[in-house]
C-alpha cells in the first residue's frame, strides 16, 4: 500500500493538472475531474495491478472510466504512473493528440476501454470480468467509475443485474456521487435515492465513503475488491472540489476556467 501522504500529494497534482489541461485546451470538464481526482488517483497509483512496462498483460487489473468526460484526471494519473509523459498532457483535445476529449483505448497507452457515451461502462466491465474468469485470471479485478447522473441510463441497471446474476466478485464499481448533473441536482432531475438500497436490492455489496478521503479510499477499495459478489462504492464527493468558484455549484459542467481564474484556482489548490 502506498504511503497516504505521498498519495494525497499525487492526487493534488491530478487536480492541478486537470485545471491546467482544460484551461489550456479551453475545453473540457474540470469540475468533473475535481470530483473524482482522489478516486482515480488511488485506483491507478495504489490499488491496481498495472505496469507501464507491460500495458497489455492479460492478467492485469482493468479500469473503465464510464464517465469519460473526466479524461484529464485519468490522463494525469496515467502520466504519474508512467504510461504517458508529463509533457504530453498539454496536448489534450488538440488535433493529432493521443489525449482525446474522451478516452480512446487505441490512442492512449494505459487506457483499457474507449468511453464517452454514458451508461455503458458497467456492462463493459462485466464483459472484462467474465473474460478474465473464463481465461483463468482469477485475481484480475475490473474497476469502473460511474458518474451519478449516468445512473439514469437504463443500461446501468441491466448491467447491475448481469453482475449479480453471474456472481462477478471481481467487478468493483465506484459511483462519483457529487449530486450534480448538467441541468441541476440529480434529485431534481430524476431522483436516484435511495441509491444504496437500490444496489442492495440488485444483489450488490454496498460500501459508502468520503470520495475525497485518500486513506478511506485506500481501505474501502481493498475491501470491495476482496468481497464476495459484485461491489459498489458510493463515494460522496463535491463537484469542483477545492475551487471555490465552482465547488458544489450547478452550471459548471463542461466549462473550463479562464486563464486568470485558473491561476486563482491553482493558488487555492496549493493552500
Amino acid at each position, binding site marked *: 500500500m502506498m504511503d497516504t501522504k505521498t498519495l494525497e500529494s499525487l492526487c493534488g497534482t491530478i487536480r492541478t493538472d486537470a485545471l491546467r489541461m482544460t484551461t489550456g485546451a479551453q475545453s473540457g470538464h474540470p469540475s468533473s475531474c475535481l470530483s473524482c481526482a482522489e478516486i482515480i488517483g488511488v485506483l491507478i497509483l495504489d490499488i491496481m495491478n498495472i505496469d507501464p512496462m507491460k500495458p497489455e498483460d492479460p492478467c492485469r487489473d482493468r479500469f473503465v472510466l464510464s464517465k469519460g468526460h473526466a479524461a484529464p484526471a485519468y490522463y494525469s494519473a496515467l502520466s504519474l504512473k508512467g504510461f504517458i509523459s508529463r509533457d504530453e498532457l498539454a496536448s489534450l483535445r488538440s488535433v493529432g493528440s493521443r489525449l482525446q476529449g474522451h478516452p480512446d483505448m487505441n490512442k492512449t497507452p494505459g487506457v*483499457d476501454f*474507449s468511453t*464517452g457515451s454514458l451508461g*455503458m461502462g458497467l456492462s463493459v466491465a462485466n*464483459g472484462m470480468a467474465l*473474460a478474465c474468469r473464463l481465461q483463468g485470471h482469477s485475481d484480475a479485478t475490473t474497476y469502473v467509475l460511474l458518474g451519478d447522473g449516468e445512473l439514469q441510463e437504463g443500461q446501468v441497471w441491466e448491467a447491475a443485474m*448481469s453482475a449479480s446474476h*453471474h456472481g462477478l466478485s471481481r467487478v468493483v464499481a465506484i459511483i462519483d456521487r457529487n449530486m450534480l448533473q448538467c441541468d441541476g441536482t440529480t434529485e431534481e432531475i430524476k431522483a436516484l435515492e435511495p441509491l444504496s438500497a437500490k444496489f442492495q436490492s440488485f444483489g450488490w455489496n454496498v460500501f459508502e465513503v468520503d470520495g475525497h478521503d485518500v486513506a478511506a479510499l485506500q481501505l474501502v477499495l481493498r475491501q470491495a475488491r476482496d468481497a464476495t459478489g459484485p461491489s459498489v462504492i458510493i463515494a460522496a464527493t463535491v463537484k469542483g472540489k477545492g475551487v471555490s468558484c465552482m465547488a458544489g455549484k450547478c452550471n459548471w459542467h463542461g466549462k473550463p476556467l479562464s486563464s486568470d481564474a485558473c491561476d486563482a484556482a491553482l493558488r487555492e489548490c496549493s493552500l
Partner: protein
Amino acid sequence: MKVNVRDQYGKALLELGQRDERVVALDADLSNSTKTGMFGSAFPDRFFNMGISEQDMVSTAAGMASCGLRPFVSTFCSFVPGRSFDQIRMCVAYPDLKVNFVSTHGGISVGKDGASHHANEDLAMMRTLPNMEIYVPSDPQSAYATIHHVYDSPHPAYVRLFRDSVEYLYDPEEPFDPSHSHVLREGDDVTIFTCGYSTHDALKAAGILEGDGISAQVIDMQVLRPFDEKTIVAAAKRCGRIITVEDHSVYGGMGGRVCEFLSSAYPTRVSRLGVRSFTESGSPRDLYIKYGLSADSIVKKARELT
C-alpha cells in the same frame, strides 16, 4: 430441399467453438430462434444468455473482445442494431473490436408478427459505421460460409439472416467466398442486384423475363462492406439498366449503396425496389406482393426499363 439459414449459423458457430476456445456466444433470450442454443448446449461455460437486455449484451461482448475473446452476438435484427446502435457505435465500432453480430429475422419476410418486427432499417444503420463489415447471405451455403469468414475477418462484422427456409443457390459441396458479390445468372439487357431472401424472387423474375426475350443478369450482393466495386461497374457497362431489390428500406440499404457508388464511378440509371413505408402483418408471400418485392414486381419494373 429447403433449409433454414439460421440452422447453418448454429452449425458453423458450433464448429468454430470446437476449433477455438476464445469463441463465446451471447444472446438476448432468443437462442432457440437465432440457433445459438446449439453452441450453448455444447459449451455452457462460453454461452451467455444476457436476458432481454440488448444494450447490456453488446457492451458486455465488447468488454470480452477487449480481453481477447471472440464474441458472436445474436438476437433479432430489430434489436441489434435497432435497440443498441449507440452501444455498437461506441463500444465496438469506434474501438474496432472484433465482435461479430449475427442477427436474424431481417426484413418483411418475417411475416405475420407485423411492422414492429420487420427490421427494414438495420443495413442503413450499420452502413454508417465506417469499419463495420456487412453481409447479407442469400442461401444456406453462403450463410454457413459467411459465419466461418467473419470469425477471423479484420473488423467487426454484421451478418443479416432471415427467418424462412430457402432452396440452395450455391453448391453445398463447393467452397463459397463471402468476400465479394456473385453473378448467379448472366444477362445483357438488365442487371438485377439483390441480396438475402430477395435473391430467390430475383432469380424467379429473371426466368420469367427470359420468356419475354429479356436477358436479365442477377447478381447476389451478399457483402456490402467490403464493397465489390468491380462487379458493379462491369454490370453497369454491360447492361446500362439496373434494378436493385432488397428486403429492406430503400432508404440507405443495398440499393442506396449501389447508387452512391455508381453516381460517381459510372453514372447509370438505377430503379430501386424495397420497402418505402411501415408495413403490416401478413404471410411473407402476401407481403412481398403488396410491398413490391415479388418476382412479378421485379418483372414489371424490368419491362418498364427495357
